[in-house]
């Protein structure tokens, strides 16, 4: 058993931190969040063509770097810390993962190679309007037609949906419910019949869109149907996304704490640094405890994700580990951001100080991909069986 970072992994963390300190400073984040697109295309090109971060966990045979989910989470933690504005989460943690999980070997070879080479961005159209993110919230419809399928429906909360080059779409056969009749599709985002609209959000550092499909034709070889059982695939894609989101939230939790500690170390009242008061120190301690626990939860889940992607035995813990990481890390990040905001006093309520950005991102993460109550309910069912 070895639950620690290798030298190489520490190197990845350090170089990501250095790169993002330079390229994702507060001024850059604030410039990008004021735009509709939400990211700087030059920076995205730098990330995909120079850093190759989007290739991290794509197997070498498919043109990737062949590293694992742990390395991916190391990058995501830093991205959360710096509130990186880029379609990385949508492309890699939703798009690439969907292809890794649900595509046929031929589809994977073709699309992932293309992603690797061109840095095309992806978005995942998943839910209609449900406040929960189980497969039953998938409400878009498909009909199988000659030579493929026909898609109809409106999707909400599609991260980077208005800017993505390609879309992965989860839809259900008309008239089916729950995990039955689901399938996944891929399409160019500007195919005929697709309309996309930016839906401005409270968290401006990550853009959401509404995507509508009006009799959109999908060719047969763009239906992701590795086998039957797309319900499982959807759950697995969601689980991988939850782990990735949780990794970002470790960064959010840590940066919130760092901002608070820096502020209370500087700010003086009653002739002393407010950070010398126990009322402040104890809040800071509660934050550190959560950062470290969240980090443990994420890297355990990342190891499980690697096991899952390699079809190793511990991979069967994927859903449980993902729910644990999602629930704990998102709550930890929100606790830390909220506590840090309070510790800033009046400054915390201003537009000028960055803590508000982390506070908003933390809430956005909490309510997407299933809130903590939903993940706990799922865990309770695992623990308690039918009686729950």
């Amino acid at each position: 058993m070895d639950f620690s970072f290798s030298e190489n992994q520490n190197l990845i963390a350090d170089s990501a931190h250095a790169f993002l300190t330079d390229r994702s400073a507060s001024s850059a984040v604030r410039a990008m969040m004021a735009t509709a697109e939400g990211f700087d295309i030059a920076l995205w090109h730098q990330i995909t063509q120079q850093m190759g971060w989007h290739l991290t966990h794509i197997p070498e045979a498919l043109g990737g770097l062949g590293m694992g989910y742990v390395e991916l989470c190391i990058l995501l933690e830093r991205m959360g810390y710096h509130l990186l504005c880029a379609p990385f989460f949508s492309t890699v943690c939703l798009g690439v993962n969907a292809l890794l999980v649900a595509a046929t070997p031929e589809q994977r070879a073709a699309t992932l190679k293309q992603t690797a080479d061109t840095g095309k961005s992806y978005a995942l159209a998943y839910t209609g309007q449900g406040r929960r993110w189980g497969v039953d919230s998938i409400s878009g419809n498909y009909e199988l037609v000659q030579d493929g399928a026909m898609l109809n429906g409106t999707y909400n909360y599609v991260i980077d949906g208005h800017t993505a080059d390609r879309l992965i779409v989860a839809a259900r056969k008309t008239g089916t419910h729950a995990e039955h009749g689901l399938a996944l599709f891929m399409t160019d985002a500007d195919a005929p019949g697709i309309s996309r609209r930016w839906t401005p959000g409270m968290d401006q550092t990550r853009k959401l869109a509404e995507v509508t499909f009006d009799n959109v034709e999908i060719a047969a070889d763009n239906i992701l149907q590795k086998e039957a059982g797309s319900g499982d695939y959807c759950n697995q894609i969601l689980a991988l996304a939850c782990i990735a989101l949780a990794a970002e939230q470790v960064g959010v939790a840590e940066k919130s704490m760092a901002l608070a500690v820096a502020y209370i170390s500087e700010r003086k009242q009653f002739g002393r640094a407010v950070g010398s008061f126990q009322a402040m120190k104890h809040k800071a301690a509660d934050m550190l405890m959560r950062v470290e626990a969240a980090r443990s939860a994420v890297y355990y889940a990342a190891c499980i994700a690697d096991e899952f992607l390699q079809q190793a035995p511990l991979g069967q813990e994927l859903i449980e580990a993902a729910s644990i990481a999602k629930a704990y890390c998102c709550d930890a990040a929100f606790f830390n951001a909220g506590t840090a905001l309070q510790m800033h006093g009046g400054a915390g309520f201003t537009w000028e100080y960055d803590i508000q950005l982390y506070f908003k991102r933390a809430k956005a993460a909490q309510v997407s991909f299933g809130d903590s109550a939903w993940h706990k309910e799922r865990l309770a069912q695992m623990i308690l069986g039918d009686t729950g």
Partner: protein
Amino acid sequence: MKLGFTEEDEAFRLSVAGWLQENLRGKFEKIRFCGGPGDEHRLFKERLGWEKRLVKGGWSGIGWPVAYGGRGCSLEQQVIFHEEYARAGGPGRVNHIGESLLGPTLIAFGSEQQKQRFLPNILAAEELWCQGYSEPNAGSDLANIATRATWSAQANKWRITGQKIWTSLAHAAHWCFIIARIDPDAKGHKGLGFFLVRMNQPGIEVRPITQMTGTSEFNAVFFDAAECDVDCMVGQPGDGWKIAMGLLEIERGVSTLGQQMLFQNQLAGLVRIAKANQAAQDPAICQRIADAHIGLKIMRYNAMRALSSNNAGHRLDRAGITCKLYWSTWHRNLGNLAMDILGPEAELVKNDRYELSWLQSLFLFTRADTIYGGTNQIQRNIIAERGLGLPRESRHP
């Protein structure tokens, strides 16, 4: 990062589990799941007998170096032993203060003569130990020790005078290790000594303290010119604080490794009850059970991180110093959950002798978890100061 243990370690796990299955039965059946914090008073003699059985099996001092009669197990193997021990329902160890705390301290700081004199009897569970740190005016402010150690040239002995408190198992112990002030003019952590004191002597009186559980496992210990031999001071005069802190680190490290499995037993017990009494149909209870499950899993991952070898640098330290606050808070919440799962039945005790169920003991005793070994408030001071570099509290001027 690699999950899972090596084949060698898994073989070790099988041998531990096998031995426990063969031995923790017959006359020892009734002490399964018995003892431990909050339950130390129960079946003490039987548990001491079990301790001797462990000694015979070679399971005493498994983490001690082979040179001192231990088994020289790796940290992983110690974890495995603790896990299997708890899984099998192994009783609370009556010898743990000697075996887990004083033994490693003597190995680190003791003279060769002290090691030869004390270690074998600790390993054999022939001499039991208790720990004399806290005093009525030295709790969170442990350095405010007032117990005096004075050198009597005439008797060629140290004389100990003062009072210790919250001394677990003092009534059963043969020896007590204490910190006492040698230099009466010194303040705080200066001028202290670390002494090994025989309990059975006229200068020592042990008075049990009745806890809110109605039971008693710790005591007030009064020293009135109690004798301590010249060769029973560990280290030099003035080393007391350093040695005491070294021991506390051991207490916070190795000896908490096994507790997650114990906690898991407790949570599994609560789940069984919740399913049986329909509490599991209450969505609010389900949420809290899931919450406890999440918290416990993460506690295990935290321990795995702390154990991993090359986790050097400040991150390990930061993870390490948050452990006590984390587990004590988790366990206290579990105690609350136990009562809420029981509902009104939680109120009823077994009989008119105030005999509590294990759930009631859990509920009450977990209130001690957030206090002993450094209160949650002291833990937060430590975390904020050492983990985050915030200004230190004013200490002894």
